């Protein structure tokens, strides 16, 4: 392979307000392969891509694309920003024509390119449909096609798989890999999904603006060989088993994975004993990228390890009240479109229950009806024994809610945010002061009470959101994709807290299309095309799709098989 596509030398970028987005990055990007820029949100991925696209100028160091300044390489650069600028009122065909015009594509070359992209993206049947009416996955495919029109030498993709369900995610990878075949186009693929790193030829692992590692995924995982194990544990025991495992010396990381515990041992630590950890059938497992990331993070900053948590106050056991959430024949129509069609399920007290489904399946509609943000067209939703339509305010007082997006007041300080939500939930005087003090202590926010919430790092924002949702000690907690995009250590800390809450009797309802979030649930409802396809434990869902050639299917495999088998075309 001749030459490099891009070279970064001591690259740094600082925003006008003084925050550092990138710090001292040196790396090389080669043609003909996919280079993954991998890291959690706020790691600096978008900044790096914008620097490569020539949309930002580095404040320190140098960036060189195709041997010159990035601005000089515009004609050979394809760039797909996180929210691609599709014209929603134009059809798929018109969007492609417009971008072809912008790139001065004409004649036979143009027709051939457009036809090929329509075929590769399987968008051909939708050529006449408005871009605004496409599903999330289809929009991303169209955006990708528009970025590929000009036959770029270097293709920059900024998190194309965000908000896309697993099946569409696999398709995006397939399209890019097909377009690369036989050419020397190089791709820079930014992602916060650590499992996507394994598909790249080369990976730049970023964390908080710094390059944590740069290597081929295989080389990155090599030191973990023989250090990763799976251990079967009883379903009821799994959350406790994590705590027990972490208390053992030599265990670097432990997390729940369906009916098993995943263990990553410190370098040189002996093979753990199954019985000591309260499980059985210990076996070696192939290391994953996330194992490597956690190990790398912990080696650099051991203080990030999840510590002991303050015990949660026990919620009063009122078993006689029946299930915490009861849904019977719930239906919601928007005009002629049935978003949720006659859905029924029940969630027991102290259960972590997940609503899992592709975009547009209706899971957020169910979720919004349950927290009282949307009125059902038919059916009944009882939350904490109350009908939300009749006693909304009282029912809401027993709920905690954490939105997918950061939904606190960014301009207000940490303390002010806590004060507002305490007041909104009717806490007053000494009770309010005590609740705020407890939240500041339990969520390690004491050192930043005066900081504006919007200026907090992502992980801390998320802690504050949860602290605000828990101030009034709710019986039921609603979480909407709570850990999307956060780094794996923050995610572990978050789910450890949620586990402790569930043990204290809090019912937790999670919506997600992230498989790693689904793994933490006790039971999952798979939602597709407005209906609940199946409700079961993660382990049982996996067992359903077990075949001879896939003896240990992942939850993602199960999810794709179940939504395809039972869903609409």
């Amino acid at each position: 392979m001749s030459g490099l596509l891009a070279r970064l030398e001591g690259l740094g970028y600082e925003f006008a307000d003084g925050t550092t987005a990138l710090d001292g990055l040196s790396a090389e990007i080669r043609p003909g392969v996919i280079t993954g820029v991998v890291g959690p949100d706020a790691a600096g991925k978008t900044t790096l891509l914008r620097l490569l696209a020539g949309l930002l100028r580095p404040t320190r160091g140098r960036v060189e694309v195709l041997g010159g300044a990035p601005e000089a390489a515009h004609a050979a650069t394809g760039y797909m920003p996180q929210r691609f600028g599709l014209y929603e009122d134009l059809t798929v065909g018109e969007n492609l024509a417009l971008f072809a015009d912008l790139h001065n594509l004409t004649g036979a070359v143009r027709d051939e390119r457009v036809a090929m992209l329509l075929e590769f993206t399987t968008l051909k049947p939708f050529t006449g449909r408005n871009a605004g009416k496409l599903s999330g996955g289809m929009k991303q495919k169209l955006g990708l096609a528009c970025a590929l029109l000009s036959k770029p030498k270097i293709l920059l993709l900024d998190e194309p798989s965000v908000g896309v369900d697993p099946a569409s995610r696999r398709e995006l990878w397939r399209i890019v890999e097909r377009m690369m075949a036989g050419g020397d186009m190089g791709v820079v693929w930014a992602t916060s999904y650590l499992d996507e790193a394994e598909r790249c030829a080369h990976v730049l692992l970023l964390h908080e603006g710094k390059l944590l590692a740069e290597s081929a995924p295989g080389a990155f995982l090599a030191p973990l060989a023989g250090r990763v194990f799976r251990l079967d544990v009883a379903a009821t025991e799994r959350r406790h088993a994590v705590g027990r495992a972490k208390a053992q010396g030599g265990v670097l990381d432990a997390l729940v994975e369906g009916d098993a515990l995943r263990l990553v041992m410190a370098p040189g630590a002996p093979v753990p004993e199954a019985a000591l950890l309260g499980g059985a059938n210990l076996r070696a497992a192939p290391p994953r990228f996330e194992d490597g990331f956690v190990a790398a993070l912990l080696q650099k900053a051991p203080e990030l390890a999840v510590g002991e948590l303050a015990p949660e106050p026990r919620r009063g056991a009122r078993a006689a009240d029946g299930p915490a959430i009861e849904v019977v024949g719930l239906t919601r129509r928007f005009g002629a479109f049935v978003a949720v069609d006659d859905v029924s399920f029940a969630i027991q007290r102290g259960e972590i229950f997940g609503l899992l489904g592709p975009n547009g399946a209706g899971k957020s509609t169910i979720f919004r009806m349950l927290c009282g943000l949307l009125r059902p067209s038919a059916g009944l939703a009882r939350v904490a024994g109350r009908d939300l339509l009749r006693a909304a305010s009282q029912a809401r007082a027993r709920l905690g809610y954490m939105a997918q997006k950061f939904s606190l007041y960014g301009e207000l300080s940490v303390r002010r945010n806590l004060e507002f939500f305490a007041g909104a939930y009717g806490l007053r005087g000494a009770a309010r002061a005590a609740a705020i003090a407890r939240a500041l202590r339990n969520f390690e926010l004491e050192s930043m009470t005066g900081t504006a919430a919007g200026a907090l790092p992502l992980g801390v924002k998320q802690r504050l959101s949860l602290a605000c949702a828990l101030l009034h000690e709710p019986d039921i907690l609603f979480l909407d994709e709570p850990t999307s995009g956060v780094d794996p250590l923050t995610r572990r800390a978050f789910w450890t807290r949620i586990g402790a809450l569930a043990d204290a009797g809090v019912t937790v309802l999670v919506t997600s299309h992230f498989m790693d979030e689904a793994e933490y649930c006790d039971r999952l409802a798979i939602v597709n095309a407005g209906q609940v396809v199946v409700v079961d434990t993660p382990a049982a869902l996996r067992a359903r799709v077990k075949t001879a050639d896939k003896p240990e299917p992942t939850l993602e495999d199960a999810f794709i098989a179940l939504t395809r088998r039972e869903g609409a075309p």
Partner: protein
Amino acid sequence: MWGRIITLVMKELASLWADGKTRFVLLVPPLVQVIIFANAANYDVKHVPLCVWNEDLGVQSAELIRGFAGSEAFHIVGAVWSERQARTAIEDKQAVAVLHVGQDFSADILAGKTAPVQMLLDARRSNTALLASDYAAQIVALYNARLPGATPPPVVVSVSNLFNPALDSKWFILPGLVVILSLMMTVLVGALSLAREKELGTFEQMLVTPLTAPEIMLGKAIPAVIVGLAEANIVLVASLVLFGLPFAGHVWVLELCLVAFSLAGVGIGLAISAVTETQQQAILGVFVYAAPAIMISGYAAPVENMPKLLQWLSYTDPIRYMMVVARGLFLEDLPGRVVWGQVWPMMLIAAVLLGVATTLVRRAIA
């Protein structure tokens, strides 16, 4: 219930204050506008540029022209010698008026005959032209009275300008500005408050708390009323201190009326807010509302001069009522009966609009 409302009010005020840009927008423009409006929007006609076209060479015409030259109202900028030159002077905006004295003027006066003079006026500036012709008539009348052998006219109108003896237009503009500025700010704060929360996603976070729709409305309305009162008082103090306006009524009457007025303004803002999704839409909504509402309120031109339809429409405009109260209280001690006649329509408008906005938000909750 009140605890939750106070919590929301405190949060809103902290939010407004926490953002440097918002703080700037709330504090600086009112003062800037007071100064600009008081000086720029000047309806008084003084020093109208005048060209003289004198074809008469007698003493009598010189005397008449001295009358114009000595008046505050006119300022002689030049002389023209033909009709073409006179037209050019006006077309090029050298002069607003041309005084034409015919060649027989002196002879006619001496002969005791009626001696016509012509005034050419630039009617593109209709207000100035109207006043200039009034002033010209006064100067001519004065000239007539001084002619030898002039008899005193049988009827004389003695004009005494009540409430604004010097006819200073600041006395008219600034009380109006108290009204306009406080309204703009309450509408804007109200419109942005919900739209901002919707845009940032905090609206849903708030909807899942036990806060009810009326509580949210009151919690949003009270801070906007506080802002509106603060704005009005900034303009009030500036008018009295910087521009020496009188204040003939009771300040507490004005403040109470401003509360009713601000509630109506918040009602408009929150209603706009309830039907918009983003702050940008909300700001557009405010401007779509504000420009016509100010025009039909009687701020710039009297309501009585408008077509009947607009006059009826102006009954739904809270600015109309507050304009009467503010102008009244500055210049006279408005009788309680008149004040009440303006206050109850504002309260009715506030109640209707806040009700509508609450219903719209309640629909969002469930």
